[in-house]
């Protein structure tokens, strides 16, 4: 299974590089002309999921650390905004900026405890913290609204229309994904890959593994916090269900489904997951077997995910073309 990210293929100076980023955003911008609000809502969820998924992928795909608690980070960001808005502790735009920062702080604390351990221990510990977020959201009824959550939050007037939230999501997610991509392609990103490929050797080339994973975790938390903020703007509410422990697995699944070995994987995975989930739960009660079956099937046969599968096909295609010459 090739773990090489698409980095070596195209250059930033190449026009194709910029087209790959700007074209989808351009397409996304004209979609509201053709789609109704319900579909825009679905796409907003895709975008948010892609953002959180890509931030998770920094840890999972690049550094090889499974984090089973990103729903907790996401929800922390969401509730920060929600609480600030609900109790009028801060004006709208300030609240939106504070939330990702607060989530980063939270990530520092959680990460500091978790990076001391390895592999599954790390995953479980992150899960433990995520579960605590869920419990606090669910049980601290007086402050967080309990199982009802916090609803009817006062968002800025501009964002009361679904279309504006859509554009906000497109541009925020677009920019954030670009930043995440850049981080993945930086020397830091290379160091993370080294950690994934050979934990022991990475220490012997001077990488303080714990510190690098912690940093990756904080960055990941920051972007998950942005995702949570977007969700609250979209739904005008925050619910404990955002941190339900199954949600953690959904984020991991999205990375795996799309392909953890390519950056675009989590975005592709989000498309497939959100859209099939929406359609499945709407039209059939058989969704658990489809979801479960898909997960089992992918982990057994398609560990490279959709992008991995496509890349293999593309490589085969190129090789056949070479042979024919």
């Amino acid at each position, binding site marked *: 299974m090739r773990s090489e990210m698409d980095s070596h293929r195209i250059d930033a100076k190449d026009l194709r590089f910029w087209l790959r980023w700007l074209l989808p955003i351009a397409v996304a911008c004209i979609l509201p002309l053709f789609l109704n609000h319900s579909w825009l809502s679905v796409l907003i969820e895709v975008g948010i999921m892609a953002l959180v998924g890509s931030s998770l992928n920094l840890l*999972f795909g690049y550094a*090889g650390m*499974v984090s*089973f608690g990103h729903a907790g980070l996401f929800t922390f960001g969401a509730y920060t905004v929600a609480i600030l808005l609900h109790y009028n502790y801060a004006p709208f735009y300030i609240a939106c900026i504070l939330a990702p920062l607060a989530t980063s702080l939270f990530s520092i604390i959680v990460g500091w*405890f978790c990076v*001391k*351990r*390895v*592999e*599954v*221990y790390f*995953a*479980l*510990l992150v*899960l*433990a*913290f995520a*579960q*605590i977020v869920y*419990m*606090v959201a669910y*049980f601290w*009824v007086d402050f967080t609204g309990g199982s009802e959550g916090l609803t009817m939050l006062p968002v800025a007037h501009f964002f009361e229309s679904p279309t504006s939230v859509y554009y906000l999501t497109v541009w925020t997610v677009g920019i954030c994904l670009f930043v995440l991509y850049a981080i993945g392609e930086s020397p830091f990103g290379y160091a993370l890959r080294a950690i994934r490929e050979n934990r022991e050797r990475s220490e012997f080339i001077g990488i303080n593994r714990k510190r690098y994973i912690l940093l990756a975790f904080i960055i990941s938390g920051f972007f998950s916090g942005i995702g949570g903020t977007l969700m609250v703007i979209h739904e005008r509410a925050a619910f404990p269900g955002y941190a339900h*422990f199954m949600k953690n*697995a959904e984020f*991991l*699944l999205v990375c*795996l489904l799309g392909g953890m070995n390519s950056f675009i994987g989590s975005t592709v995975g989000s498309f497939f997951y959100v859209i099939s989930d929406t359609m499945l739960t709407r039209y059939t009660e*058989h969704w*658990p*077997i489809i*979801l*479960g*079956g*898909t*997960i*089992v099937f992918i*982990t*057994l046969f398609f*560990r490279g995910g959709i992008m991995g599968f496509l890349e293999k096909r593309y490589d085969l295609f190129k090789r056949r073309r070479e042979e024919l010459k």
Partner: protein
Amino acid sequence: MSFDFIVLQLFSALSQGALIFLVAAGLTLIFGTLKVLNLAHGSIYMIGAYIAYTVANYMGGIIGHFYIGIIMAAVVAGLFGGVMEAFLIRPLYKLDMHFVFLLTFGVIFIVLYLVYIVWGALWHSITAPDYLMGAMNIGGVFLPKYNVFLIILSFIIFAAIHLFINKTKLGLIIRALTADRETVSTLGYNVPMTLTYVFMFGCALAGLGGALAAPIRVIVPGIDELALLDSFIVVIVGGFGSITGALLASIAIGLVNAFSFLAFPKLAAVFPFILMLIILVVRPRGLLGKPI
């Protein structure tokens, strides 16, 4: 708050702990030996409960149906585990653990679906035999007989597992596998089959737990989630791979549950997690786990 009341609560706590122990013991055993964290463990617990229900339903009149139900639950759970391990998990051993992790997560949904198809979404219940129901008088306090039964049974099972692991040859092989799988295979033992057996045994325990819990809990899709979370807490608090740790942790959690329910009924569910958090901070390896 009378003495009787406290003793009653204590007993309720211990019996809850006993149930949690059975499920968590399987999980920690599997994790310790196979290094696999089976997220579907709660689902297997649930299967056990449903099997016990089915047996009770169809063999209601027959003497001893309760025990047959429990045994069948363990057997079916064990077989299910065996099939799962052999066909789904074994191919992934050589890879990073997160694939197995995710695969078992997928199995959760598959089991949930199967349960829903076969037994529907309504909740069911079963009752234990008459002589196990009601209360018995111990030293002036009236304790629920079934709870006493659970506590005694769990201690017996714990002792059995402990003896098996530490005193038998197969137990020695399993302990060796926990430490160094490669070396054991060079010694000529059939490692894959042994691992499968351990997995099956762990699942059988979970199924057993589900069946034993059935008379005092409701049987409905969704009990897998609670069982899984409880098991996780026990495994973290008790220490990965330690059966004795799992016992201690289960008792601790049973106690925390019982007494926090008295003191803060609304927030009671949080306290096991607070315990887990404290352990994570103060002693990350768990009570009796190996240093990480």
